[in-house]
């Protein structure tokens, strides 16, 4: 997404916002794509944008994009540049955090269990979004998944069958 220069934003800030919006779009495609897979390949496929719109998992990205709309509006108002900068920083933090957490969780697991855990996490995140959970709830869920990745990795690495009770 390109931020038009006529909105009154400085070119540097417009560039930051543009990159943040692109990151939010990538996040939406990654969360909303039921089949998972290569984001770049799927983003260029016909109908990719419509999938983002119809899938409830994209609500995360819609929430993330909301501050950017505020920032664009404020950009056209004289004397509001500091608020605009603050909103841009806030947007950048949200995008970076939301994009990193779901991706980081499977990376901490052993290679054997990584693909299906990643799919299961994506599935549960989509279920959360479908049930109407907000962005904070979804991020909390992603953080819990992240914190449980280490014990899950230990359990996956342990291939021995033990007869004692768990």
């Amino acid at each position: 997404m390109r931020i038009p220069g006529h909105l009154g934003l400085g070119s540097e800030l417009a560039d930051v916002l543009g990159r943040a919006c692109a990151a939010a779009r990538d996040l939406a495609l990654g969360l909303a794509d039921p089949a998972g897979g290569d984001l770049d390949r799927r983003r260029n496929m016909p109908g990719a944008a419509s999938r983002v719109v119809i899938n409830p998992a994209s609500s995360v990205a819609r929430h993330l994009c909301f501050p950017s709309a505020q920032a664009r509006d404020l950009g056209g108002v004289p004397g509001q540049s500091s608020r605009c900068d603050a909103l841009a920083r806030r947007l950048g933090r949200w995008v970076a955090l939301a994009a990193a957490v779901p991706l980081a969780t499977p990376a901490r697991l052993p290679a054997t269990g990584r693909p299906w855990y990643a799919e299961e996490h994506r599935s549960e995140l989509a279920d959360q979004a479908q049930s109407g959970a907000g962005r904070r709830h979804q991020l909390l869920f992603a953080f819990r998944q992240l914190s449980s990745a280490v014990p899950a990795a230990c359990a996956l690495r342990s291939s021995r069958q033990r007869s004692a009770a768990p």
Partner: protein
Amino acid sequence: MTIPTQLVLRALLEDPAQEMYGLEICAAAGLPTGTIHPILARLENEFGWLTSHWENIKPEEAGRPRRRYYKLTKDGAERARTALAQATVPVNSLPGLRPRPAGGPA
């Protein structure tokens, strides 16, 4: 046996023939979402009490990713009952940690 493990086993033992996916188990066990996968991984990979499989749907048609369903094996269900009966800290003795039904009041 830890309290969360007991809660997960009790949720699965309510109807051992029923397959459940992650969020369903969380709701039935009364545990926060995102916390049960280490328990499920241990029960499946380390102890062999559980089996799991992917939902047989086409994600493109269903409009959502596939779910992974978990179920106690016959042997696992018996072992789980025995283990719960022998648990040193029965979960029912701890107020506030009893599993609540899925969709019920918090």
